[in-house]
């Protein structure tokens, strides 16, 4: 069983953190990963920076721009992660945009992920139909879970189709926004959380976008299995540096 699937079976609410590889400094990737694990984070999304990130807000976009200026590339990330499983045991997910993966070669990319010990992939701009028609067999061959997003606007029928196509968790975007676009949740969002919980999906759901502190983490995990923090964490390491990871995690739980 994949590390993500094992983690989802644990009887706790999961805290997942996103950070951009190669930010703030090119060699911070491994430092941040180790500190996240040591701080008790359950799962990590390693962002592969992209020049034109459509789903990201200003904070993550700026971190990607800086990481690219620092010299981050797909190959560089893989070489930084070589041997990572000697010390990191929590699930690792690579999150990025599809064009860099396509240019690297989808099969080669998946093979490298398997060799390193990556458990899953999130590519927000690789839609369900494209995945199923062209890439599903490759992801499966290398034991990678592909995580799909849903939003408050996703229809019930499509949520069910996504649930059927998934084998790990569903990434629930909390509201109609790019990353870091909201702060705290509205009543409308709470209704959405309840609605999805009541659908009895086969996959657990993990909430992302708009989670920045202990309160929003608790709200997001009242009905769902876990939550992902991205922009707020990037802001924290921008202000305090890569060595300050545990201070941030302590504020959440």
């Amino acid at each position, binding site marked *: 069983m994949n590390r993500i699937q094992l983690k989802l079976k644990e009887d706790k609410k999961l805290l997942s953190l996103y950070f951009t590889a190669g930010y703030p400094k090119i060699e911070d990737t491994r430092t941040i990963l180790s500190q996240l694990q040591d701080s008790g984070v359950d799962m990590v999304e390693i962002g592969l920076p992209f020049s034109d990130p459509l789903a990201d807000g200003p904070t993550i976009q700026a971190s990607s721009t800086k990481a690219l200026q620092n010299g981050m590339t797909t190959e560089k990330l893989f070489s930084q992660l070589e041997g990572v499983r000697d010390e990191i045991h929590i699930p690792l997910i690579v999150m990025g945009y599809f*064009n860099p993966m396509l*240019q690297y070669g989808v099969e080669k990319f998946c093979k490298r992920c398997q060799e390193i010990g990556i458990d899953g992939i999130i590519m927000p701009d690789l839609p369900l139909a494209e995945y199923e028609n062209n890439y599903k067999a490759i992801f499966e061959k290398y034991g990678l879970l592909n995580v799909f*997003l849903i939003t408050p*606007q996703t229809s019930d029928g499509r949520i069910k189709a996504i649930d059927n196509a998934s084998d790990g968790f569903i990434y629930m975007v909390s509201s109609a926004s790019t990353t870091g676009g909201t702060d705290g949740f509205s009543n409308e969002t709470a209704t959405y959380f309840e609605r999805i919980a009541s659908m009895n999906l086969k996959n657990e759901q993990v909430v992302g976008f708009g989670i920045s502190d202990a309160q929003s983490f608790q709200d997001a995990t009242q009905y769902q299995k876990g939550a992902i923090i991205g922009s707020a964490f990037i802001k924290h390491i921008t202000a305090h540096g890569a060595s300050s990871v545990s201070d941030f995690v302590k504020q959440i739980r």
Partner: protein
Amino acid sequence: MNTLEKEKNYQVDEQGYYGDFGGAFIPEMLYPNVEELRSQYIQIMEEPSFQKEFKELLKDYVGRPTPLYFAERFSKKYGAKIYLKREDLCHTGAHKVNNTIGQILMAKRLGKNRIIAETGAGQHGVATATVCALMGLECVVYMGAIDIKRQAPNVARMKMLGATVKSAESGSKTLKDATNEAIRDWINNPVDTHYIIGSVVGPHPYPDMVARFQAVISEETKKQLLEKEGQENPDYVVACVGGGSNAAGLYYHYLNQPEVGIIAVEAAGKGVDSGESAATSALGREGIIHGSKTLLMQTDDGQITEPYSISAGLDYPGVGPMHANLYRSGRGEFISVTDEDAMKAGIELSKLEGIIPAIETSHALAIFETRKFKKDDVIVINLSGRGDKDLNTYIEYFNL
């Protein structure tokens, strides 16, 4: 011309692909919007009430049909029969308004009350602001910070028309980044907002929808050429290509008629190999930009390259998927023209025909210096826009 070639279809298929190119590579946040449009656009466009309103506005508001003008002195100089399809005479000064009229009617039928758009040269921004004023809808136009500086008259026009112009400060601060910002706005406003994309780019159905609205250009050209030459088909149709909407409009009814040569002219900037260019067919590889798979200027690592052209409307690192397919299949002949040659051609047309073209269009006009034609070849060039907005660039370039 063999039978196979005749039957080849250069139009979009049901999955939104033109050959290997197209599709809809969009984050889930955009899926409901794009799916709503995809599932309804053809049906809405075919409704008689839509067609009636669209055609009336094109006639009485835009000023269509635009003339097909035989450029006698220009033809004499280059030894061919050269016609100019005068899209510069459209209201707002370019072909862009054909599409924005269509899309604003589409937006109204979809129940949207807020419009967003991206713009490079400002022509699409002005055309969008214009139709929003006409229909009384809120309008927000994203424009790269650099383009805001070099296209000041169009920024002023948009503001006069009641639009809000938002500056895109990321990346190269040009059209690519304005498009990113507009897409982000749409993600954040999924219910009440329609995104009027200005070219044949973006996720399916945009490339097809925009091409269908612009197809009025080739539809008219066929009728007009029949009157003037006794034949519907020219030997060549020529247009400049940034994203490629004026080109798609001129090519549309000729795509599956292989006897008509299709020539696409891209901006070479300071030279294809200079590092400052926007010649996508020469420099691009298959990749994904703004939701569709197409030819794209990018690094080996898949990061999108910042393009360059003196013309803000051609300063885009990709082309629409229809054009990528025309290039790969060999159906289209792609030529790239430098800033210098385009600027000279712009001045030349002004002096020979009394028509000051947009610098975008000047690229198409510049091919005659290198591409030779037969004396009796009938060539239609899409004169996609007028040069008023580019006066400052012309003035600075030639010390006028």
